[in-house]
């Protein structure tokens, strides 16, 4: 892997070449949070943001997309060309890149390959940047606090400069196009990179113990925690919407007047929604909220382990931040493990 560095004072120039590789999206202010959006000035870009409201999955699996249209005269016309629009995501944290790598396993590497997802992933350059964990990050526990694949470039703060890991040939092209803005790192730079990486690892305030968790979940299927969660959960689905690895979607046909032509629409769904397991005939396999909350935890922490060898949770902390009922995954897992501590960010579960 090629390793370079760029002085921070030249990062604005470096970002200026990115439009050559696609529409640039970077973390910018959105209300009280941050979102990947198009900056209108370099000063709009926040390199030290804690997390964005929505993860970058919105670029690979849009909240709502037309996959194809159908018409008795024109036949089926797919929308793959729309999906393959060159895009650059600048400033993506390691756990979010890890989240995309997990989605890759479902949509790009599994038995059912999704051409729309694959087209977007291939058309999107990812430029990562490191971050300082806050009280809701537990990416270290989920082994998602660093990545060695899934990005074109990765920037790590080493003081006056960023160290750049070049992950792909497209990343190399970006570096080459930016002229002589980058330089070779020195031994001092590498030492500083390692010192800061160690410091970041130590900075995590929130941890989850994963050992034997799938087995413990198996044993605790009827634990009263799930009923308590069901009583608190509002079934709003916010946790799934902001989750980098929740990928449930619904497919509907929007038919034009005359009912002969129309568009097939795919849009995000959530297993927290009451209609998620509703089937023809009115049967609902998860009509109770408690069963839906439990299903989501079990799929992320147990089902995914059985299928892909690791939990799909990457410890970004978004679900903790967004839950209106203050349901906190860290506290839930601690309760299930029988080691309930008060998590720094959580409200009292009895509240």
């Amino acid at each position, binding site marked *: 892997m090629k390793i370079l560095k760029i002085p921070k004072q030249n990062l*604005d120039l470096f*970002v*200026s*070449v990115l439009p*050559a590789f696609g529409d640039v999206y970077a973390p910018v202010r959105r209300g009280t949070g941050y979102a990947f959006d198009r*900056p*209108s*000035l370099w000063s709009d870009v926040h390199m030290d943001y804690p997390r964005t409201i929505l993860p970058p999955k919105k670029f690979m699996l849009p909240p709502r997309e037309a996959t194809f249209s159908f018409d008795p005269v024109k036949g089926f016309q797919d929308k793959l060309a729309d999906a393959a629009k060159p895009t650059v995501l600048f400033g993506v944290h390691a756990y979010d890149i890890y989240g995309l790598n997990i989605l890759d396993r479902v949509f790009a590497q599994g038995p059912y390959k999704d051409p729309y997802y694959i087209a977007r992933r291939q058309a999107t350059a990812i430029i990562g940047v490191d971050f300082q964990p806050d009280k809701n990050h537990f990416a270290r526990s989920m082994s998602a606090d660093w990545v060695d694949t899934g990005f074109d470039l990765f920037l790590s703060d080493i003081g006056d400069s960023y160290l750049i890991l070049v992950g792909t040939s497209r990343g190399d092209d970006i570096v080459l196009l930016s002229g*002589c*803005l980058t330089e070779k790192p020195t031994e001092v730079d590498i030492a500083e990179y390692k010192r800061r990486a160690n410091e970041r690892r130590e900075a995590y305030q929130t941890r989850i113990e994963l050992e034997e968790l799938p087995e413990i979940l198996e044993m605790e299927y009827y634990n009263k925690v799930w009923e308590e969660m069901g009583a608190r959960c509002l079934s709003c689905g916010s946790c799934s919407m902001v989750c980098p690895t929740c990928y449930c979607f619904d497919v509907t046909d929007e038919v034009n007047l005359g009912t002969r032509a129309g568009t097939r629409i795919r849009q995000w769904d959530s297993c927290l929604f009451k209609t998620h397991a509703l089937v023809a005939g009115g049967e609902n396999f998860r009509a109770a909220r408690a069963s839906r909350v439990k299903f989501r935890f079990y799929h992320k922490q147990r089902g995914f382990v059985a299928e892909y060898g690791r939990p799909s949770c990457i410890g970004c902390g978004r679900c903790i931040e967004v839950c209106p009922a203050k349901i906190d995954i860290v506290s839930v897992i601690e309760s299930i493990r029988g080691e309930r501590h008060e998590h720094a960010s959580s409200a009292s579960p009895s509240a």
Partner: protein
Amino acid sequence: MSEPKTVLVIDDDHDFVAAIEALLTSSGYRVATASNGREGLQEAKKIQPDLILLDVMMTERTEGFFTLQEVRRIPSLSRIPVIVISSIYTDQPVFRVSPEAGWLPADLFLPKPVEPVRLLEEARRLMGESSQTAAAGRKP
């Protein structure tokens, strides 16, 4: 006689803008100005110019690059020809913005100081005019 074409000049250097405005006006063009990228975009949406002359280093030194990206993204503006006129070429020699910079989504890059005759020629060319057409609109 057809309406004079409109050129929008986006630059924070007032002396430069005044000089360019005089040059273009005397050549029969209507000129609008803006002193930063955001104002420039608003003005462009409002007047739909036939050509945009865009500086790079304004309030921020890469401002013009971001403005250009927006011009290319906004459907009503995306086809308007843009000439980037900037001294970033000489100010940032390590950065690959040469007059041939193929990555810049501009129709043309001209380093400052700009040669007036060349600028007029290129402006006419990008607005699809012959020298005669532009001369016909010239003020007496």
